[in-house]
């Protein structure tokens, strides 16, 4: 188990180093995938099988694919040259690094022996989905819901950011119906066809 931890920990670090040192954005993303997979492996060695699987599905399987998708779509795999696009980025990185180092120092001085693995495994019932869900929805309910609200805000914000301003020609009402309620089912919105919009405009 110790050996597995050492190997996986080393892989995690190697992936992290590749992520920040690779000149090619795709290689950097692949390094990150390696890191996330190794973290999943670390979860698995701690008998947290549900967490391990979710880590791989969500982070390595979905989020990183989206990262790579964007990199490839924008052809952003060329190395960045020229001036730093963010002002004071070096200074900010220095402050961040100092804070992190301080946090590590605090962590080292306040270190306590964790509960033995077997004991926590019993407490978490081998890390199955049920135990994780129960913990999330009872003890950590507030942080859990706060995070979900945060994610929702992030999604709404992203949509608002990419929305182009709608031009408002004279005489066209502000609230144009986006779809037509189907009279038969009362359920289904029929998508807006170009003809329908033009007709709507002609009427207005």
């Amino acid at each position, binding site marked *: 188990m110790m050996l597995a931890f050492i190997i996986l920990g080393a892989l995690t670090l190697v992936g992290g180093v590749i992520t920040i040192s690779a000149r*090619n954005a*795709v*290689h950097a993303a*692949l390094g990150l*995938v390696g890191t996330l*997979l190794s973290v*999943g492996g670390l979860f698995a060695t701690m008998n947290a*099988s*549900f967490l*391990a*699987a*979710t880590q*791989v*599905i969500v982070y*390595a*399987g*979905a989020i990183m*694919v*989206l990262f*790579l*998708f964007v990199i*490839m*779509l924008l052809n952003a795999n060329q190395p960045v040259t020229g001036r730093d696009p963010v002002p004071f980025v070096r200074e900010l990185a220095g402050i961040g690094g100092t804070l992190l180092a301080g946090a590590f120092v605090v962590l080292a001085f306040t270190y306590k022996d964790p509960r033995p693995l077997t004991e926590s495994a019993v407490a978490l019932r*081998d890390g*199955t*989905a*049920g135990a994780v869900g129960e913990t999330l929805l009872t003890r950590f309910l507030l942080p859990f819901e706060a995070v979900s609200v945060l994610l929702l805000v992030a999604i709404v914000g992203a949509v608002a950011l990419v929305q*182009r301003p*709608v*031009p408002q*020609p004279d005489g066209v009402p502000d609230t*144009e119906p986006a779809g037509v309620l*189907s009279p*038969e*089912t009362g359920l*289904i919105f*029929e*998508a*807006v*066809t*170009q003809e329908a*919009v*033009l007709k709507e*405009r002609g009427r207005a």
Partner: protein
Amino acid sequence: MPDWIIQLLITLLKGVGVALGLLTTFAYMTLIERRLLARMQIRLGPNRVGPMGLLQPLADAIKSIFKEDLTVTLADKLVYTLAPIIAIGCALTAFGGLPAGPAGSLFGADPWVYNLDAGLLALLAITSMGVYGIFLGGWASGSKYPILGGLRSSAQMISYELGMGLSVLGLLMLVGSTSFHAITNWQANSGWMIMFQLTAFVLFLISSFAETNRTPFDLPEAEQEIVAGYLTEYSAIKWALFQMAEYVNMITASTVMATLFFGGYRGPAFLEGLIPGIASWPFIWLFAKIAAFLFLFIWVRATLPRLRYDQLMRFGWKLLLPVALANTVLTAAIIAFSTGRVRVLLLVLLGVTGVALLIAFSDRMRVLWTAPTVRREDVNLTPARPAGGD
């Protein structure tokens, strides 16, 4: 020898056996698929190499191995070589966790390579890693069409993974475990899962067609639009590895559907009345179910045309995902508020009405993915002159 070395050796042996078995199945799947497709098109199909063409896979393999292995100048060499290995590695690994029989039924050993509590979740995790093979292969080729194919496949697979994962949630709630053994045992006690989760099965079936890149969802390799998609710059054994991965994924998807919805390695219980013990004959039932699903894959390929790409995405996001979500919520409600016979009845009712509604409204729902979405400012872009002709 200590016990753990023996265990390790047995596991290794089983792993190699499963890999070899899958690759042989792949080789003969290509032949069977070509023959069946040909017969459905009233042709004969390949019948020249060996008796009835039975040696055709061998000839194909020899050709693939000894063909020149081209590497494009602009290719990212490392990733270009890694991509097919990732694809086939994930495909083969995914299969290992599926049980082919009860514990100890394989000459005293367990008929699976590894057994995780996370069963289904682990399988989804491994198959989701399989996307990288296709995706990176497309990017590393350093060419236009492969990157388009790779982008398409990544978008498609992420979209349909969601529908796939959501459609089995109801099933997992019913069983209360993600382990394949628990799912199989549950079905042995209460009957096949398809009775309780018909809608989920339909959604899972459609998603697995998309996940394995098979017709009508084989957009990543739509020949008419993007040559061979991510495969364009690949040749020889690397190309063959990608093909292997696709077929192994197909076999895995068939096995998963058999295990989740059709009782896994156990035969139908009503046959027990005719011949006692028939339902627990080893392996035969699972193989028969896999074969049936593989036939379905081929049959669909012979029949259906390919979807347009935007239709594919809309279909996944606007129909599959919401229906899967609704199925999950309703199943959860039924499980929470009913017990015993009423629960069974309600679940059956839910499945049947869900599928009936999908069939009844199939025409009406088509606008969800056929009509193009028009942005309002685009309407102003109507050309001043009538289109066509100068």
